[in-house]
């Protein structure tokens, strides 16, 4: 059942064990890359990912499950809300030089 008003949606959550933001992939696995998210383009697909989200919640794999709206761009899905873009791309600031450079400064 496809309606013209349905915007593309993806399912997102945070992983239970470490809280890292994840998206439900087309293969049914949770991925840390929004680019690999399954794109629900009609109501039935949205219902399916909502159901998958509830199941993952019940299975204690993820927490804070939400369906979010995205636009499809050449670079991949892009969330409409800034909050979700930041969840996808990480903080917009250079927050942890040692971590992001992959360099350990441990003494």
């Amino acid at each position, binding site marked *: 059942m496809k309606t013209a008003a349905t915007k593309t949606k993806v399912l997102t959550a945070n992983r239970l064990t*470490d*809280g*890292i933001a994840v998206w439900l992939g087309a293969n049914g696995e949770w991925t840390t890359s929004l680019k690999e998210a399954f794109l629900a383009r009609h109501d039935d697909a949205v219902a399916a990912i909502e159901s998958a989200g509830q199941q993952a919640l019940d*299975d204690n794999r993820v927490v804070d499950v939400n369906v979010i709206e995205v636009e499809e761009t050449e670079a991949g899905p892009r969330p409409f809300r800034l909050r979700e873009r*930041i*969840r996808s791309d990480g*903080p917009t600031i250079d*927050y942890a*030089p*040692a971590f992001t450079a992959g360099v350990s400064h441990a003494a």
Partner: protein
Amino acid sequence: MYRYDEFDHAFVAARVNQFRDQVERRLSGEISEDAFKPLRLMNGVYLQLHAYMLRVAVPYGTLNSRQMRKLAHIARTYDRGYGHFTTRQNIQYNWPKLSDMPEILEELAEVEMHAIQTSGNCIRNVTADHFAGAAADEVADPRPYAEILRQWSSVHPEFSFLPRKFKIAVTAAERDRAAIQTHDIGLQLKKNDKGELGFAVWIGGGQGRTPILAKKVRDFLPEADLLSYVTAIMRVYNLHGRRDNKYKARIKILVHETGVEKLTTEIEAEWAHLKDGELKLPEADIAAINAYFEPPKLGDRAEGWGELAAWKRSDPGFADWVGRNVAPHQHPDYGMVTISLKPIGGIPGDATAEQMDAVARLAEDYSHDEIRVTHEQNLVLPHVALADLEPLYRALLVEGLATANAGLITDIIACPGLDYCALANARSIPVAQEISNRFGDPARQAEIGDLKIKISGCINACGHHHVGHIGILGVEKKGAELYQISLGGSADENASIGQITGRGFGPDQITDAIETIVDTYLTERISSEETFIACYRRIGAEPFKAALYASEAEAA
């Protein structure tokens, strides 16, 4: 500083073990998220945008080098190599795994730290003047009383499920560096005519979506009555505070809706039942806690005076740093050093593990092993001999910790905002960074003088925007970030709530708007002696509004 006794050690260890069991049961699926969430929050574990966040309490902002090294170790081992010091003198880690939390808490317990009551509707970490125990202008060290309150309030059965969170701040000087009028209870330690210690008691201050300054309900409460009187306040609040609406649940709303006179009458009536009971503080108990806060033995170091003058002459950068970041100590041969966590263009309050280790080492070398966290998101070495300032400065330079901007326009408070926080509507940190870069030139900052900018990414006001001389509030409007400006706020002894100037500004306009405000101040001030806040209070908001919205006025 306070040291855990056997009971404290056993209690914290038991809590770690209890939470370890809860985490294991959560990870195994034995308990649901709905059941687990209040348990993790009781142990300072939040879920933010990208990951879990752990908020660790730093009681009244005081810690020693061993504790700071442990904070560095946790940042390095369990997080991404840094931590964020907060406006409540705590530290937050932004990336810990839930599965690591029990280990982290166990490591914290090794150095007498924990994350209990850093969340939830309970009495939170009691905050204090970050210069406590060293400031030349205090009547006594307020931290023993903060510690008494901490012990009394920790897992207090009657006050663990309040209508809303509850924050207490303590200071001991006329100059309020602890922002007591923005707290649920603010306490100012003072002496009466007989030289006895007691407290001026303020209640009902708070920020958030309804900023209200506290009202004074007692001008002098004898120190022995501290716990009985605070208990009376808590009981009246716990009984009458609203539980039907979380936005009206803080004591400030109760004070506002009831009226301070009526509420004070109720508090006094409750106190009449309590004041001569078991909560009366015996002198011996006060003395015992005070003994933990015995000041370090500071030997005379008079040679520092001459050396300091010579160093300042030879190094203008050092002279600027001393001028801004060193404050008078009780001992004339010493100073209190503010270590700025606001490098130009940096992230306010963030420190890397390496910087934390360096501060720990420098505290051992130069500050009798004492460190403070300020509510303005800086660190303090409270007992540094003037003779040691130059080598300390050189060491801080190496670590990127010698920014000479304490109290200046780039010493910005900013909450984590939408870069991390699940509650935020807009980013705070990039706004702070851009303003810092715009005004980063030392000469320009010096010309502007004392000016406090405070930025929040949502109406919860963790960035204290209501009490910034210039406050910035990020909101979301039509899916985009928008920043409202308020002017004239202040969190000191002359506290005031800032007034919104008018329509907000987009992310690409907000720094220009701040510059317009600063330029207006520089034009309007009588002399460089007149600070921004003094100038604002003299001329009001209109000249600033006229400058900010000049183009609109012309178009109208």
